[in-house]
């Protein structure tokens, strides 16, 4: 997603490299999760780690989400730095007790005497019939818990840098990966670097409409922004939020003060999404800078159906964003520019796969 032609890695490769470098640097880092050392290596994000760091540091785990979360907390209290992985964020619902009652609060309730440096990677499923129990986007559920940090990188660059920061952080950090970002490439430096938790990143400058977006929606927003700029001269300012807790509201406020218009795009169900939280914070803090009602873009309020016929148009995409931006600006859609945007943003392949390589069974 950057311009200089440096080394390109996919998001998944970047995560793998970040784990590798963090393990190399710090012997306290261990990686655990169902399938971590198996032939598929969590969508290849853990490939080779067991060979390199051994079976004591790279672990498969029993199907015990709550218990193993607790075990990771216990290990973290004892000085380890566990990275735990759920192939689907939905499985983490089994671990809410340990995440919320213990991980989030241990440092606080024991007066700062102990801390829980751990990372929980959770993958949001999408496409190819993941269905109701394998496709939820639960970031808002975690983001409301004081004591947790929640990140949701969009680019491979940020995936690596945020993973390193998350591992170095002394708090429990939930690291949410959208499955459809795994294959997206970006320039990724080969050295060990950090990206700060809690700061958004400008993906695309513009002065017409602010689009604050999370994870895959930032990727979609960037596509919309490029097309609208080229074809219509309309400037979307795309802010990749990157962190869900703490929210970088300042960056959004700065942008909104310039544009006066706000779209928040989220990967989750509409109601109760973190998008609502962000909109609320913006109006609480900078009501006067908005010239039009803020707009929320999210998935509808029902579980993702499995049938690809039904799931067509379930997820908002670049065109949803473009349309919302035009509506916000009060612009007509009866123009040649909009026609070209529409064509450019129309889906090319099947709607339930991010690219040609992506197919069943997963």
């Amino acid at each position: 997603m950057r311009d200089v032609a440096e080394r390109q890695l996919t998001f998944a490769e970047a995560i793998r490299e970040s784990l590798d470098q963090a393990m190399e640097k710090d012997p306290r880092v261990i990686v655990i999760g169902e399938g971590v050392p198996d032939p598929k290596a969590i969508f290849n994000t853990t490939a080779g780690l067991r060979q390199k760091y051994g079976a004591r540091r790279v672990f498969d785990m029993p199907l015990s989400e709550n218990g193993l979360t607790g075990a990771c907390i216990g290990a973290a209290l004892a000085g380890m730095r566990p990275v735990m992985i759920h192939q689907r964020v939905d499985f983490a619902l089994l671990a809410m007790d340990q995440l919320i009652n213990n991980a989030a609060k241990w440092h606080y309730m024991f007066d700062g005497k102990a801390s829980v440096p751990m990372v929980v990677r959770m993958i949001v499923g999408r496409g190819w019939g993941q269905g109701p129990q394998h496709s939820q986007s639960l970031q808002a559920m975690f983001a409301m818990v004081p004591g947790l940090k929640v990140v949701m990188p969009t680019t491979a660059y940020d995936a690596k840098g945020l993973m390193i920061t998350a591992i170095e952080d002394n708090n429990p950090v939930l690291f949410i990966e959208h499955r459809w970002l795994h294959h997206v490439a970006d320039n990724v430096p080969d050295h060990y670097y950090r990206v700060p938790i809690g700061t958004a990143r400008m993906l695309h400058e513009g002065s017409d409409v602010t689009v604050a977006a999370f994870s895959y929606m930032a990727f979609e927003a960037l596509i919309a922004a490029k097309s609208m700029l080229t074809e219509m001269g309309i400037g979307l300012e795309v802010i990749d939020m990157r962190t869900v807790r703490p929210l970088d509201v300042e960056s959004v406020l700065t942008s909104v003060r310039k544009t006066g218009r706000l779209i928040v795009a989220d990967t989750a169900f509409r109601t109760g999404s973190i998008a609502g939280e962000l909109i609320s914070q913006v109006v609480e803090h900078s009501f006067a800078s908005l010239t039009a009602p803020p707009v929320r873009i999210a998935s509808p309020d029902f579980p993702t159906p499995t049938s690809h016929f039904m799931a067509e148009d379930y997820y908002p995409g670049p065109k949803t964003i473009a349309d919302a931006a035009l509506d916000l600006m009060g612009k007509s859609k009866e123009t040649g520019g909009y026609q070209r945007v529409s064509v450019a943003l129309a889906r090319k392949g099947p709607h339930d796969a991010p690219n040609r390589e992506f197919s069943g069974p997963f």
Partner: protein
Amino acid sequence: MHDQTRRSLFRSMLRIRRVEEALATRYAEQMMRCPMHLCVGQEAIAVGVCAALRKEDKVFSNHRAHGHYLAKGGDLNAMVAELYGRATGCCGGRGGSMHLIDLDVGFMGATPIVGGTVPLAVGSAWAASLQGTHDVSVSFLGDGCFEEGVVHESLNFAALHRLPIIFVCENNDFSVYTRRNERQPNRPIYRIAEAHGMPAATADGNDVETVNSMARSAVEHARDGKGPQFLEFDAYRWREHCGPDFDDHLKYRSVQEIEAGMNNCPIDRYKTILMQTGALDEVSCAGIETQIREEVSAAFDFALASSKPTIKDAWEKVYA
């Protein structure tokens, strides 16, 4: 056992096998766009257990549900249509392979969260005991389930209230690519159930008659109000964990092991026995194959001819 019954057990296993194989073949067309966990190799457990049940008895299943669904009498057309995402699917397309239901035959539901339906089966048995029906509930669960706390909670509650439920563990030694010895200590699974206070037994899950006779006595026990039982059966999953293919190339299990597993085919074994005892001969066998082939082919036709739901339908039925 009557020859008729034996042929029916055989037919039921063969039917599941042929359905799974047809799905595997046609999966590559990319028209069934959902994750699919085939039960090839594990047919005897589904069939042996379900043959011990009445239609009113309740079955709850998991991600690997096709065999359970078909063995309990689930509608084949509705299943195949579901995999194709059609409106005539048993979930109207909402569920796909990992969510099957056919209430008419007591198939109460299958879902993919490991262990997720186990307490529901217990609740179903609890309701039966409160309502004074004589229905028995069955929970099909994999070896992986014994790592999930909720399964222990379920066993405890079932034993405490002596509920009419049979837990049927299909122990295929794997959770995805991970062997049991990387997930559980070296101890038998059925002992866990025993420790939770219920009778438990284990046997070869490739022997359909053994499965059936154990299931029958367990069901009788449960129906008589004598409480839950636990049955653990060894099994071998022939194909990849999820998806239509064989995955020998991944080398997480040896060729010898796979061959041994496949040589222990529950269907071939049973066929040999039935041939020997005369319950089956080549002609009747061929007749069964033809019937099944036609039925399966018709099911695909049905699915493909069925209407396609849209996002409009998806807005419905969020609330009852």
